[in-house]
């Protein structure tokens, strides 16, 4: 990627490319470039994987620990709403 002078401008479009929001002409350009540039191919694949892995970790449930929830409700003067969920 560092050796090819055309790699750098493509770098700016990579986020849109991995999100699938890049316009078609630029997509084609990136794909054509990747066919000849192994480094770029690796960067795109590992960038996509990086985003994918973080998405996967974020799918875990969003739970507030019970004691944190209790203190939150008390700080908001809503402690009378605590009982039904406990």
């Amino acid at each position, binding site marked *: 990627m560092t050796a090819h002078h055309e790699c750098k401008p493509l770098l700016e479009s*990579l986020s849109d490319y991995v999100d699938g929001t890049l316009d078609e002409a630029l997509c084609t350009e990136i794909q054509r470039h990747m066919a000849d540039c192994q480094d770029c191919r690796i960067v795109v694949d590992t960038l996509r994987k990086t*985003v994918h*892995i973080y998405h996967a970790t974020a799918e875990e449930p*969003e739970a*507030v620990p019970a004691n*944190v*929830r209790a203190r939150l409700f008390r*700080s*908001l003067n809503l402690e009378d709403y605590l009982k039904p969920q406990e």
Partner: protein
Amino acid sequence: MSDKKPPDISLEALRDGNRDEFARLVDAYSGAIYRLAMKVLGDDQDAEDVLQNTFLNAFKHISGFEERASLSTWLYRIAANEALMLIRKRRPETTLTDTATEDDEGKDYSPVQFVDWCCLPEDELLSTESKRYLDKAIHRLPEKLRIVFILRDLEGLSIEETSQALELSQTAVKTRLLRARLNLREQLSSYYGERLQDRSKVK
């Protein structure tokens, strides 16, 4: 939270000071706000402070909520401000050099690592140890990049919602997101690159 169905909260009831509705609002969004704060700050107590201040501020200012953004984006905005304020408060020794690093402008983001670790199995990529590293890697990001990455890629806000929550232009959000992702890719390439080597030694 944005890609899930938003809970049916009545803004009118909130503005009327209806406590039932406030309690419902807190239960609907506290999980996401707490997780955001934990990811940004990496500390239980700090995250709890941000959680409480977010809802205290939301209650206080609900009459000023103007519906230009969704209720959830508005809550994220309050939480992001609270978290960033806390980071700045905890770091009074910040020098000019640190500020320059935080801005991270002009830094070269060209990739330097070209290890293809995509072939590692999912259970290795997402093992408990790997997850700990993934969190650590987020904390190594400059805060301005970190908050954009967390809202967009962990909380699933759109570019537009992230720009509303952080009061940044969409172009700035995109630039910071790309830098955050490239930075994380480098960090993960070092980490998973080593895992890859370990595996080839075993074989």
